[in-house]
């Protein structure tokens, strides 16, 4: 797919969606190591239960990293200006996450032509996990 350009993009256009593999413990262990987030609630069942959770659960930043992939699959990262996420729900083991995005605004920001994209991640039950926005410069 060619890289999007400002003139070729319309408000309402969707980004190619990204479907993730079912969340499992291995993914959480790898992300703990790679991200440096060693909070035991994500990797140690005993610690998760002691904290009142039924099981370990995904790092919020793993879900945000997947949304980052959605964005950089669409436009090169060098064009990403802002990326914001609100963590609306915990991503649990067994969740199948779907990342989607839609162009909602075309604007000028710091002298550059940009688009604002609304992004979200949901599980297979349609429950919202992350809602976010990104600002992407397009030539």
């Amino acid at each position: 797919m060619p890289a999007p350009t400002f003139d070729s993009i319309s408000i309402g256009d969707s980004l190619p969606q990204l479907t993730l593999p079912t969340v499992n413990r291995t993914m959480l262990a790898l992300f703990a190591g790679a991200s440096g987030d060693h909070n035991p609630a994500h990797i140690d069942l005993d610690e998760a239960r002691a904290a009142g959770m039924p099981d370990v659960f995904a790092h919020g930043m793993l879900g945000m990293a997947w949304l980052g992939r959605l964005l950089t699959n669409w436009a090169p990262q060098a064009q990403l200006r802002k990326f914001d996420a609100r963590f609306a729900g915990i991503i649990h083991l067994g969740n199948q996450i779907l990342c989607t995005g839609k162009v909602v605004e075309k604007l000028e920001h710091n002298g550059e032509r940009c688009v604002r994209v609304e992004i979200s991640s949901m599980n297979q039950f349609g429950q919202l996990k992350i809602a976010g926005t990104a600002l992407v410069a397009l030539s």
Partner: protein
Amino acid sequence: MIDKKWIGHEAASSTLTVERGRLKFFAKAIGETNPVYSDEAAAQAAGYADLPAPPTFLFAAELDSGAMFALLDQLEIPLSKVLHGEEGFEYLAPVVAGDTVTVTTRVKDIYDKRGGALEFLETESVVINQDGATVAKIRNTTVLRH
């Protein structure tokens, strides 16, 4: 309750050298298959000086150094009761393998909702590289549930 005296407090800075191997591990952990993130030649062909740090990677700097956990400890926020509320990045210059970034975080606000059942810690961080250029700004909201 988190003591509001910490509003404005600046935490110890964290310095992280961004290594190629770490970036490849991070790419694997998030399922990233675009060769720009794991193959130096592909990254250079795409215009990057070296492998780029993916959009959320800079969050690792304060975790690696322990600065984030130290801040929570200092504010007497137990890790077992925190959830991530929000995270935001503003990108001002690329960060690639070989760069050394320094992250400095300041407590922006502390407040509560639902009669104190939930408390919120907002921080703002500035990330500079080895040349002193500001490469990113990061904002974080941590939720403490009671």
